């Protein structure tokens, strides 16, 4: 579904992605973790080409992104992307946020698009908010609408870039519950997150990154039970018991 072959990326002189080789199979849930600045957000943003790559090959849903003739807009329509800051359209009501792309891009008739949107809102538990505006919602509610918006295009892949990092702690659970439900439905997902509970419970595979490189790649049991790389061990220790971090 998604294949990285020797992918490199630089921001000016900063080497943000260093020889990434990764393969995501259909239906797989992949969690990417690592310290901030490790390149995990850049990695997930290359998949729908919000960030172009400089070297190597990236094939998404059968399309080689380096191919000049690749229709990137068409590919993006097949990929849902959920942002850390939700990025709902503030000038549109919840229902219009969800139906905009299906109506304008997929040419779905409005009535049908709204019916599908309502089904998605039911699924994320926000049916009663259909006519609210994004800024009238809490962060957790906005993020659930954002997930519904992504799903409205019936995507083949869903990407999550730290979807709970901007939320108050009591709202994280409601968003993770929606994501878990989605994972169980068989969606192919790549999730950048610090939520290790989610990774342990839902992920099929965990990737650990630092300084732009993938240092470890393992099923969650193995990754959490017996991390091989020293940086991964240190990272997990700090994450699980932050107060006892052995700061350098």
């Amino acid at each position, binding site marked *: 579904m998604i294949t990285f072959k020797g992918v490199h990326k630089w921001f000016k002189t900063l080497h943000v992605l260093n020889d990434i080789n990764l393969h995501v199979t259909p239906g797989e849930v992949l969690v990417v973790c690592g310290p901030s600045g490790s390149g995990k957000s850049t990695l997930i943003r290359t998949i*729908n080409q*919000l960030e172009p790559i400089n070297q190597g090959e990236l094939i998404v849903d059968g399309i080689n992104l380096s191919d000049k003739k690749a229709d990137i*807009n*068409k590919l*993006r*329509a*097949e*990929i849902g*992307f959920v*942002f850390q*800051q939700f*990025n*709902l*359209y*503030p*000038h549109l009501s919840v229902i219009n946020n969800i139906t*905009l*792309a299906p109506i*304008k*891009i997929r040419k779905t008739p409005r009535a049908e698009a709204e019916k599908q949107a309502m089904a998605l809102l039911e699924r994320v538990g926000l049916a009663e908010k259909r006519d609210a*505006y994004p*800024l*009238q919602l809490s962060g957790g509610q906005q993020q659930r609408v954002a997930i519904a*918006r992504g799903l409205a*295009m019936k995507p083949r892949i869903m990407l999550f870039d730290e979807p709970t990092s901007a939320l108050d702690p009591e709202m994280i659970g409601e968003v993770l519950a929606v994501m878990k439900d989605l994972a169980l439905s068989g969606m192919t997902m790549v999730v950048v997150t610090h939520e290790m509970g989610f990774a342990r419970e839902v992920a099929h595979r965990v990737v650990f990154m630092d300084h732009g490189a993938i240092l470890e790649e393992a099923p969650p049991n193995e990754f959490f039970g017996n991390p091989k790389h020293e940086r991964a061990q240190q990272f997990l220790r700090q994450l699980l018991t932050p107060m006892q971090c052995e700061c350098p």
Partner: protein
Amino acid sequence: MIFHHPPLLHTSLGFFVLNYQFDWSVVTSGKYFDWLVSGLITTLKLSCISIVLAFILGLVIAIMRMSHSRPIRWIAHAYLEFYRNTPLLVQIFFWYFGSYKILPAVINDWLVSTNFEFAAGVIALTIYTSAFIAEDIRSGILSIPKEQMEAARSAGFSYLRSMQYIILPQAVRITIPPLVNQFLNLAKNSSLAMTIGVMEMTYQARQVESYTFKGFEAFTAATVVYLVLSIVITSLVNLYNEKVLNLHKAA
């Protein structure tokens, strides 16, 4: 000291005594009133047509200014600098006295047979105002977080469609108060069109003055009309700010 010379005081006061006979009926009724009303209508027509065209042109220039192509950006930039930094009166004269000279005779004759003063006024006011509007729209667009564009592109919208459905509706909402300011400036600037014979408000006030010698009344009337026009529109904007802009803010 002065009180010792009452006659002198009297004469010097006489110098200030008003011997002007006010006659407001000149501007409140009859033929001259009709002239002023027709001037007001022409002013409104001139302003409304120009603001609509200036908005469309300004939008195009603003988007060109943010283009990925350097030559297009440069053309838009040159346009802005050129029209913002030359006097409007010169531009009006250029379009009215200058522009048609380089056109073929057929078009020339046609232009003269039509109401070319009005058209030249619209062209000059539109182009001049569009330069300012373009900058207002551009700063409106720049004030929309870049994540909005990312979200739109991620959904599969092209750059232009993202602009159309997501960025511009938000940017224009923010831009409406400065746009109304531009409209007020335009309405006031439109008085310059009298110099090429457009029979707008100021032109008609001048006419009334010429026929009646009631300059004070005529130009007071013109002043009041411009003032009322501005105040009404400004109040509408304030209402808009309160009702519409706050609607989308957090509850």
